[in-house]
């Protein structure tokens, strides 16, 4: 019994981290159509901001979550203003540009704070393990699960119930028509990019106490995030939620019964096979055409 619960929790935990990382990527692609290859580096920068706030100002991780979101949103906003805004509707150019931004971000971190691995302390109150239905799990992993769901809920509420969200959905369906109805699409794009970058930063900060903080850490996350987005469907928030859940449980299960190397390969094969039969992903946004 406890091993089943423990497996389920492991899957959920992997899923929550996947979703945290993928959410920002999905939002940015869904709205602006930009494939942001610097997303992993936004995650990495978030972790470094957490580290800097902790070592320079003695701020605990929980207290620094809001500042990290704001700082990374600002970074995203600047990147959009300086680079991305000039490249909309030029898919290949944005891929190249964001890849370049990623490389520069890695090297900048290495030049400013050095290449060594960094250490972010786990919040004291969450460093214990807890018992659920006979299975023990890390309190911090449960906390990540909770935060990931809360952030997803928040994003969904913004998307569904606010004026901003309404404009977002309009632009997602057809930018030209939305624009002709007086929606300032440039401004909406900018805010979306900033929000997505802020989410990536939060993801980085939240995983930093479980993993290691290094200039290269974003590279692996961006691959996982793309798998989630591709599987879920690119314009659907629910798709992101569902596909991170599926991928998390699937990799947790496969890794338990074989090992992580095989799990990674099988998950990738499964996605490729699925895309063959359902190229649009599992979920698609309904649109009147």
């Amino acid at each position: 019994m406890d091993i089943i619960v423990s497996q389920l929790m492991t899957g959920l935990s992997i899923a929550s981290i996947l979703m945290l990382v993928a959410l920002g990527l999905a939002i940015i692609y869904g709205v602006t159509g930009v494939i942001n290859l610097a997303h992993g580096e936004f995650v990495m920068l978030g972790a470094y901001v957490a580290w800097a706030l902790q070592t320079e100002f003695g701020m605990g991780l929980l207290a620094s979550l809001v500042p990290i979101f704001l700082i990374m949103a600002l970074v995203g906003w600047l990147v959009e203003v300086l680079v991305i805004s000039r490249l909309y509707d030029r898919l290949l150019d944005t891929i190249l540009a964001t890849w370049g931004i990623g490389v520069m971000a890695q090297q900048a971190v290495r030049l400013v704070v050095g290449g060594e691995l960094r250490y972010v302390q786990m919040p004291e109150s969450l460093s214990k393990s807890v018992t659920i239905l006979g299975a023990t799990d890390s309190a911090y992993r449960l906390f990540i699960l909770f935060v990931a769901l809360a952030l997803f809920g928040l994003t969904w509420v913004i998307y569904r119930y606010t004026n901003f969200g309404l404009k977002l959905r309009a632009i997602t369906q057809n930018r030209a028509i939305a624009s002709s109805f007086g929606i300032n699409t440039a401004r909406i794009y900018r805010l979306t990019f900033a929000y997505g970058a802020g989410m990536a930063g939060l993801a980085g900060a939240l995983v930093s106490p479980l993993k290691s903080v290094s200039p290269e850490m974003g590279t692996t996350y961006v691959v996982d995030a793309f798998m989630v987005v591709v599987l879920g469907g690119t314009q659907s928030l629910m798709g992101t939620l569902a596909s991170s859940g599926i991928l998390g449980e699937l990799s947790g299960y496969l890794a338990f019964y074989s090992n992580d190397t095989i799990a990674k390969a099988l998950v990738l094969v499964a996605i490729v096979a699925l895309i063959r039969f359902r190229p649009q992903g599992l979920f698609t946004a309904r649109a009147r055409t």
Partner: protein
Amino acid sequence: MNKDRRSFLKATAALGTVSLVGFPHIWNKNASLARAADGQIKVGVLFSLTGTTAIIEESLNKATIMAIEEINAAGGINGMQIVPVVEDPASDPATFAEKARKLVLSDKCVSVFGSYTSASRKAVLPVFEKQNNLYWYPTLYEGRECSKNVIYTGAVPNQQQDDFVPWLVKNFGKRWYLIGSNYIYPKEENNYCKKLLAELGAEVVAEEYVPLGHSEFSSVINKLKAEKPNVIFSTVVGDSVVALHRQYHAAGLDPATMPMASLTTSENEVAAMGGEAAAGHFTSAPYFMVWDSPENHKFVDAYKKRWGADKVTHFVSEPSYFQVHLFKQAVEKLANSDITPNAIREAVKGQEMVAPQGKVRIEPENLHTWLWPKIGQCQADGQFKILKQTTDWLEPVPYKAYPNQKCTAEGLKQI
């Protein structure tokens, strides 16, 4: 016509003789490498300063540079200054080979100090063998290599495990869980470990490999909870070490009953995972930063003074440091006119010095190093407590897992 041809032949023969005698570099590749006249000895320093392994190779670069500066400040070698040519191979094996070629052929270095991963060593090996130059390799590695062009100053499997494995079996028990990163080093170390465990009548409950750079260990933790091994033998490397320890700690597992025993967790990784995640686990290595000896105090103080008070020394940066001093001792024995890679190799055979870890010696037969394996237990302050050291320095046996093979000066021998 005949006469013409004869004189032509004569002239050609004469020219040939003159060129052989007068321009020795035509027939002796290494002659042009002699560094005497200009009062400089050029050496290559080849550690990645960018890319994935820069995290650790930067510290090796720092230890090497520091040793060179020390030697130069003390008057150099027989009055000649060591000039380091530093290249950054960017953690990429192909770039390693290219930079090695540059250092040997165009910079005419008499030796190159470098690299961390086995992949990069394998990449540069053909360059040093073809050009008959010398490569100084400081990392612990899987053994099973025999080259007269590489001096190995890190530990091989027998030097890390011969003491460690029996000690762990005695103190913790016979059910072992082997986990490593998925490449050659962990697999070779585990082969050796399994051999020792079989001799001790211990059991391997699982042997598992995770992808390089892997950072999600929750499934592994679940398996540990289910299997409850006595010892987790870890040859996980790099960032993954940090993730594994932190997730083990967060899951509430206890090192007192299920410790991790590692060959790859140094002060460097511990600094990045935080002392509380590392405390209680074991590492076997010939060097720990806390080792109490005058040579080590001097090394640690100098390192902190040169590179910053927050820096740590560890079991790969220490050989990076002492191998430059061994190089100096070997070159000192040579006349300035015949400083060549060949002559240096011959001079380095059997060379001894008191390194920070203790007195070390280059084994003439296989160019590996006699070392002082120690067992350390990590403490909450991020430093190790040394529990045990071998009673005598330990011979390097790079082919110990392969009973019929032996590395000699003439190459690999079947016995």
